[in-house]
């Protein structure tokens, strides 16, 4: 497929798990440990087709990160999925207002995650 996904999460086990699932499904994975790290990966030349980001992170949280990405001309239209434990609507609303495309609610299994990824991955 040759599609690249940027995975942003401060938790090693989440990154490993998400990364492993995506790699197995044929995606190329770039990892970042928080919003700031992810921004520097993007300005440093990473060209993901899709971004998956956690919301609660140190240094730069997910919402600020999403706003940052949307402000970058190259990634204006890149789908961004947020990982959230809140099934509550306010987080989703905040995320969408910031420019998030969709969300994956934790806990999820790999299959569920891939379904959502497929749903928004540009063709």
């Amino acid at each position, binding site marked *: 497929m040759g599609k690249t996904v940027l995975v942003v999460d401060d*938790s090693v*086990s989440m990154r490993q798990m998400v990364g*492993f699932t995506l790699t197995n499904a044929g995606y190329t994975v770039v990892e970042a440990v928080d919003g700031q790290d992810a921004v520097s990966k993007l300005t440093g030349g990473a060209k993901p087709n899709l971004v998956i980001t956690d919301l*609660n992170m140190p240094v730069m949280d997910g919402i600020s990160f999403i706003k940052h990405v949307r402000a970058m001309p190259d990634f204006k*239209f890149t789908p961004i999925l947020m990982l959230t*434990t*809140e099934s509550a609507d306010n987080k989703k609303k905040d995320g969408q207002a910031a420019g998030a495309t969709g969300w994956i609610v934790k806990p*999820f299994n790999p299959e*569920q995650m891939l379904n959502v990824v497929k749903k928004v991955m540009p*063709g």
Partner: protein
Amino acid sequence: MSTDLSRFQDAFFEESAEHLSTMEEGLLQLEQRPTDLDLLNRIFRAAHSIKGNAGMFSFTDLSGFTHHVETVLDALRNGRIGVTKPVIDLLLDARDTMKTLLGAVQGQGSADAEAVEAIRVKLEACRAVSPVGAQHVVPLPRAEVGRTDASPRLVRYRIAWTPPDDVFQRGLDPARILQELADLGTVNSVTADLARVPDLQAIDPERCYLSWSIELETGSVVRDVESVFEFVREGSVLAITDVGAQHVVPLPPSTAEPTAERKRIGEILVEEGVATPEQIAVALGKQKRLGDILVEDRAVSPQQVQQALEKQRQMEAAAAARKAEPSSIRVDTTKIDKLINLVGELVITQSMISDLGHHFEMDKLPMLLERVVQLERNTREIQERVMAVRMVPIGTVFNRFPRLVRDLASSKRKQVRLTLSGEETELDKTVIESIGDPLTHLIRNAVDHGLELPEDRIARGKPEEGTITLNAFHQGGTICITVEDDGRGLNREKIVAKAIAQGLITEGETLSDDAVWPLIFRPGFSTAEAVTDVSGRGVGMDVVKRNIESLGGTVMIQTTEGRGSRFTLKLPLTLAIIEGMSVRVGPEIYIVPLTSIIESIRPRREEIKTIVGRGELVDVRGAYLPLIRLYHVFGGAANLTDPIQAVLMIVESEGERVALMVDELLGQQQVVIKNLSQNFRKVEGIAGATILGNGQVAFIVDVRGLLTVSREENAVAA
């Protein structure tokens, strides 16, 4: 796609342990700085990560419980409840419960369900006091996939959809959504409504001006159709109308019959009341093992079964060993980068030297020497850096003490302030791992015995709040850790009286202070008047001393009655390199750790005595010490067999002194310990080996082991 996530569990466990310490540390600090929102956010994030990740691994107990903790933290964050001692107490308890639950999923012990429930109820109650009123409890979130098999009918829907005009900016593509609808069934028609498209000049190409109306024929229920629009819902105008069933297509009955969880036959029989658990147990006991049946049928021989069983045991043992084996260490990447730089330099030096070697002429000798010096420097630096990789800041140990002191202080009704300094001081990982218990002991003692009750302190004109200071710093090639309190200090009379009562010293013996204080390190020694749950059981100080000595360190006491005490632990930086004295016995060279050497003497003839059953003794200023001839213990031949010509080294271990007889002292040097038992086997009296500058192998003497060996030999000789 395999859904096996267990391979990521180790990372989860490690990470969660870190989050738990963040929480503990954070909560303790929060008590001091209740308005620090950054701090609160950090605690919240830690709890939140544990909850989310635990959910991923289906550790529902942990994630469910943590959810309650998180809710309380959130209430703190929003200011709905205030930071008070009871709340902090509760959250600390809850953190401990999380730790227990985490341990339980790792297979370490199990959580007491009632205790967990009790804390959970308290957490809920704590939140309920919030003035804003009860907050809706969010059930444990579940992944949002809905697929009901209720209707096997094909339904026709008419869908009118106007996406928000910023749909592209949200990374969404309406074409994908139309495609997804098509995947659900048959799209009979799609009509785009162009009414909102403005004039060409006014068009912003990044906005969406289109609306669609779609007719879809599908077997899916309306919720599935809606879920296609899940992400685009916000800001969309969407209407889905059921235009009616077209025709009913009978589908084969669902094969996804919900299967009951597989139960054992015995469980079912008991549940249905057909059999009692006892009957089942008896019946199960009658069952024969596979091996027995095969042997009876003469299919295999008993020996073969035995062999197979043995193999099974070995495999299990090996699996268990594998599980326990790896211990990992987190290394700051800057350390590794420096190491790589140094290796780069080493390679350059090496190539310069080999270049010189290829076209060597005598006039290049100074240059060669210069390069060799450079090589030496590179090697030494690399050695230091490699050692540094094993170095861990002692803060990782210190961190557990604020909590310990807080808990102790409140249970002992004392007011204690703990000051930490030198947390960044680095120590070898092995030392770090073994230093925790002795330090814990010293700190418990300081709170329990050292510090007085607030009223006593006031009576003595001291501040009400006692201070315990924990400090770590480098001193020469060693690390010093001090535990200091401003309490009552050691009581000389009590210690002496107790020592006399225990027969450690005799009445009338006059001892200097420096000789009195170490008495508290004797096994079974305790002057605490009441045995408390904290200390005073008489096990403790001797263990502290033994642990520190086994690390090659020493413990020192300074104390002033009424003013406080200070315990100073001196530890080697690393266990892999020791300061040693090299000694010669015949052709062999041995290394004796410098820390155990007290002095070296050459005795007079009349100071050597032989006593039946105790072997040779030497009189050192009135004390008779056993004389051990090193060549007797390890075999081999010495040049000097007469003690008055040889050198006697007085060495000490665990308070016991002996004189080691050697031919000659060669000098002091640092040696790298090579483990013997990995390559050969454990040899009593030998701690390891090292390679000397000339390539010769020298054994490192384990003084404590040597004492044991010589005692046994004397016992046999007697």
